[in-house]
Structure formats: structure tokens, C-alpha cells
């Protein structure tokens, strides 16, 4: 049990944080340079040397280019048209076609962003050429930088969220399997005939998992710091305050599942059901802002969403108590409801 509780989550943390990254690196691209001029060659070099793209092939036929896309040898095809150099110098502008594999819409968006950067860079360097041709060149330059995560380090963004998922997973499953396992082994019969009161029983079940959960979080924060160098701009105290309330929600939910099911298998299925929904609607992998309105409303009922949000805000933005009171109030209400339900649903009568 101990390795399951402590080792498994951290292996997951290490693997997931590295695997569940939205960084797009070394995108294979296919070049179709129909101009074969020094400028077109230069543009192609811009792509190759950017670090984001890797040239996997070159051809002059669009059929072959599409084949490359379909066979997934390339995710991007750059088509430089005939007369590219000529048009650029004489007319000041010329189109370049980019065909992006958008099977994965998110990656496609990122690739598009990169290509825009590259082409902007290319334009800037060749302004002189356009100037000579008398073409107008942009007076306003668009530059962007990500606040709170300027290097766009995805691990900084993901680690706090994944940590929340792991704490939730351990808390929900440990508590969810607990009371029901006593039903299976029969020990609940012996407990039920004692004068122990429902709230005492539930407290006794809750407390050890609460401590384990906080221990788990501590180890996770340590790894976030040491291995992933995730900054901590806010206060650890605030993280622990929220975590201690959040764990009551998760454990209360687990104990509720445990009291209403009859076998560990049933409890497992119910716990997974909620875990999957909570994870998908947590904003961990897909941003809540891009969900449909109804789904955004549903996420308000998702405790995981609130804790993921708070963790990111406190760790990356340095949010303070006043900034997170809204989510915190929701978690408090949630904890109260879950624990009341768990205590009331645990009846000291037989489950025949």
C-alpha cells in the first residue's frame, strides 16, 4: 500500500508533466520551393534553423507534398511560389502557402503561430528589399510575451495542475475504498454494534487520509521545485490552507461513495466516473474559456477545477488570499455538503 500511495503518484507526476506538454518541437516539414531563388532559399533556411522545424523532404509536385502530409512524414508543407523573389522585390508582397496538418487542432495552432513568427522575422530582415521597391512596410510591430510564464514553459503550467489531480486521485480512491472494504471483510458489523457515533466514525476515517493527502502535496511541491523549477510566487501557507479544505471535499466525496456502495468494485467504478469528469472539466488540459457556455457552468461545480485554478494562480501569479476567495468559498460549501452527506448516509445498520 505504501508504495502505491507515495511512489506511484510521483512517477505519474514526473512522466505526465513531461508527456502532457503542448510544446511543439521539431515539426517535420516538407518544402516545395518552386522559385529556387536566393530569397526563397533564404526563407527555407529560416524554417530549418528556427529549431521548431525539421526538413524531411523536398519536391516540386503538390501531389507528393500531400502524400507526405497523409503519410505523416510532414505536418507542414511550405509552398514557395514561382516568381517569389521577383514579386517580393518588385511588388513588395507575395503569398506563401502553408499547409498544416490539423488533425490535432491544438498543435496546428501552435505550428501556425511559429510559422507566423518565422515569416515576420524574415520580413523584418528583408525590409530593405521592400523599401527599395518603394513598398510600405509596417510601422507597428506586433510583439507578444506571456505574462506570468514568459518563457511559455508548459511544465510550469502543467505541474501545479497535475499535482492537484494526483492528490485528488489518492484522496478519492483511498477514502472511497475504505468503508466499503470494511463492509466486504465484515468488520463494519462489529463497529456498528459499538456506541461509536457516525461523525466519530467518519472523522476517524477522514483524518489519516487528510494527513496523507497533505504529505503527498508536500512531496509534490518539493518535486515541482527541484525537478521542474516551477516558481512559487505566492505563499505556501495559502496553498496549504486551500489544500486542507480541498482534501475535505475529496475525502468527503470518497467516503460518501464508500458508504453508498456495497463492494469495492462498485466504489471503484463510481470513483472513476467522477475522476474522469472532474479531470476533463478541470481546465488542466483544455482551457475552460474555450468550452461551451453550459460546460463552463458545469465546471463551477467541479472542485478539481477550483483547486487547479488556485494552485496556478498562487504559484505562477502570486495571487493572494483576497484574489481567490470566490473559489475558496465554493470549496468550503462543497466540503460542508460532502461531509454532512457522508455522515448522514453512513447509517449504523446492516447493509443486507
Amino acid at each position, binding site marked *: 500500500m505504501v508504495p502505491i500511495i507515495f511512489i506511484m503518484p510521483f512517477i505519474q507526476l514526473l512522466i505526465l508533466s513531461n508527456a502532457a506538454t503542448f510544446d511543439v518541437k521539431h515539426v517535420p516539414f516538407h518544402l516545395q520551393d518552386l522559385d529556387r531563388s536566393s530569397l526563397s532559399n533564404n526563407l527555407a533556411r529560416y524554417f530549418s534553423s528556427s529549431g521548431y522545424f525539421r526538413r524531411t523532404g523536398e519536391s516540386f509536385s503538390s501531389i507528393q507534398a500531400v502524400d507526405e502530409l497523409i503519410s505523416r512524414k510532414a505536418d507542414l508543407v511550405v509552398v514557395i511560389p514561382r516568381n517569389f523573389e521577383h514579386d517580393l522585390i518588385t511588388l513588395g508582397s507575395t503569398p506563401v502557402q502553408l499547409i498544416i496538418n490539423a488533425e490535432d487542432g491544438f498543435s496546428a495552432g501552435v505550428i501556425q503561430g511559429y510559422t507566423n513568427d518565422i515569416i515576420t522575422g524574415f520580413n523584418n530582415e528583408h525590409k530593405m528589399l521592400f523599401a527599395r521597391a518603394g513598398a510600405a512596410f509596417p510601422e507597428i510591430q506586433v510583439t507578444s510575451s506571456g505574462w506570468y510564464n514568459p518563457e511559455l514553459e508548459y511544465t510550469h503550467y502543467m505541474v501545479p495542475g497535475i499535482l492537484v489531480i494526483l492528490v485528488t486521485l489518492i484522496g478519492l480512491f483511498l477514502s472511497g475504498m475504505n468503508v466499503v472494504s470494511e463492509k466486504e*471483510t*465484515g*468488520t*463494519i*458489523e*462489529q*463497529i*456498528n*454494534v*459499538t*456506541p*461509536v457515533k457516525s461523525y466519530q466514525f467518519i472523522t476517524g476515517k477522514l483524518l489519516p487520509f487528510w494527513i496523507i493527502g497533505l504529505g503527498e502535496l508536500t512531496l509534490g511541491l518539493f518535486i515541482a521545485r527541484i525537478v521542474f523549477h516551477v516558481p512559487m510566487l505566492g505563499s505556501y501557507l495559502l496553498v496549504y490552507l486551500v489544500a486542507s479544505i480541498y482534501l475535505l471535499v475529496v475525502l468527503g466525496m470518497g467516503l460518501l461513495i464508500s458508504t453508498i456502495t456495497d463492494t469495492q468494485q462498485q466504489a471503484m467504478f463510481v470513483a472513476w466516473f467522477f475522476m474522469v469528469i472532474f479531470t476533463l472539466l478541470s481546465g488542466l488540459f483544455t482551457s475552460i474559456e474555450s468550452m461551451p457556455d453550459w460546460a463552463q457552468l458545469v465546471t463551477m461545480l467541479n472542485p478539481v477545477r477550483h483547486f487547479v485554478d488556485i494552485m496556478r494562480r498562487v504559484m505562477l501569479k502570486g495571487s493572494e488570499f483576497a484574489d481567490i476567495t470566490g473559489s475558496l468559498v465554493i470549496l468550503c460549501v462543497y466540503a460542508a455538503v460532502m461531509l454532512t452527506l457522508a455522515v448522514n448516509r453512513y447509517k*449504523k*445498520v*446492516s447493509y*443486507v
Partner: protein
Amino acid sequence: MTSKTAVRVTGLTKHFGSVEALREINLAIHEGELFGFIGADGAGKTTLFRILCALLLPDKGNAEVLGFDTVTAFREIRKRIGYMPGRFSLYQDLSVEENLRFFATVFGTTIKANYELIKDIYSQLEPFRNRMAGKLSGGMKQKLALSCALVHRPELLLLDEPTTGVDAVSRREFWQMLGKLQKKGITILVSTPYMDEAALCDRIAFLQNGATLGIDTPKGIVSLFTRPLYAVRSLQKHILINTLRQYEHAASVYAFGSCVHYTDKRPSLDQGELQAYLTSCGLNGVQIEHIEPSIEDTFIALLEEKGGLKNA
């Protein structure tokens, strides 16, 4: 003291879906009594015990334990009773001593305070007090369970099939322990499928299909058996049973240990006539002996009587 009632059950009925687990049970158990419930699996013993422990709610009727209603005053009851379920229900991953200490604490007492009560039983376990409860033998588990049920000095002890799956020596020891506990003034309710244990109780109740077939002292129960009973022996036991069943005057015929128990429809039986019948049917070495009925004989007779009534 002994005249007071420890458990009173009136018209108790319990259904599980369409199954009638208990049907109109009426009982009064005196303080200080060692009361046995005898019945096959599924007779309703466990259901009755669970209602008395306030673990189940009755559908109809009511039960009073130590003067408290099992539905309205279950908290009072739980402080005063010790229950040992049929299935071993202690924490297998706690040691012997941890289990005992845990249950003492839950009842707000200590092992030390009631050590004198459990000493006889627990002293046999003390050499293994650091062993996990799950790793104990059957007999030891049962002793530990009894210790845990006793650690808060209950007034009433409910033991649901405590000797099922326990070896003969441990069973005898266990009943000796129950005798000692009874002397200390604890009322004991015990259920068992073993007829030989019934004779060790002050009074017994036969349970079958959720109804009581008879409640009396072991002697009184036996006196319900009115017909003369014969033990018939032959080397060909199987043929003997079939031959006896075909005999026109046979009332009941059933195998009992090494012999066959037989009752006759007529008020008196001419043993010579039966002997002659059996010999004429080709059985040799037949011995017929008039015997006193045992509790089991009475139970079987009561069952048949009940079955006969049902068919009528």
C-alpha cells in the same frame, strides 16, 4: 434478579424482498439465562440477532433488549451488549492486542479495567498478542472475538454461531467458558446448528424458516416427543431404511448416526412383529432397541409435524 426479562420479542416479522426471514416470533429470555437458538442455515438466526443488536429494523412487531426498544433506544442497547457475528469481523491487519485495545477504547474503557472478566480467555491468547488477527487459527480467532465482545463488560452477550468451523476440542472449551461467564451474571444468547450443543443451554428455541417450532428447556423440548422411539440396526443400513419406509405402520424413519430411528403409528409396537417383517424382507442381523429421544429427534419430529400441517 433471574426473574427479570433480558430480552422480550413480540410478533417480530422481517422480510427481505419476498423472502420471509422471520415470522411472528415471540420470545422472553430471562436475565442470567444461557439461551440457545437451534436451526439450520437460513432458519433466521442471524436475522434475529441483527435485530436484537439494532443492526436491522423489524418490519412488524418489536424487540426489547435489557428494557430498551431496539428501534428507539438503540444507543442504550449498544453500550450494554456484546455481539460476536458469525463471520470473523475483527481487523485482520491489527494484532491481537491492538484489536482488543481498539474495542476497549471504542466502548470508553480499558483492557485493564475488565481484565478479570476476560482473563480466562485472553490469557490463552497472550503468547500471541503481537500476531496479526488474520493469522490466527480458527479457535484462536473465536477466543479473540469473544474477548473483544466482552471487553466492555456487557450485560448481554449475543453469539451468532460461535462454534461453526471450530474443532471439537475448542468447541468444548468454548462452552465451558460460556458456563463461567453465565455464572458471572451475563445473559448469553447463542445460536448453533449443532444439536449436541443445545443440551448445554438452559433453554432452547428451535427455528425453522423464520418461525419458532418450540421453546423450552432441553428436557422440556424432549418431552414434546411423545411416541416411543426405536433404534434399528442392521449391516445393510440403506436397504433397512427403504424396507422400514415400506412398512405399513411406519410413522417416521430416518438415519441417525450408525442406526436408523423409527417410530410407529400405533400407540405400542410389538418388537417381535417388526423383527419378523424385516427378516422376511431378507435383512439379517437386525437389532431393535427402545431408546429415549434426543433433542435432534425432537427437532426432526417437530419439523415433520410442521410439514404435515402445511400439507394438510
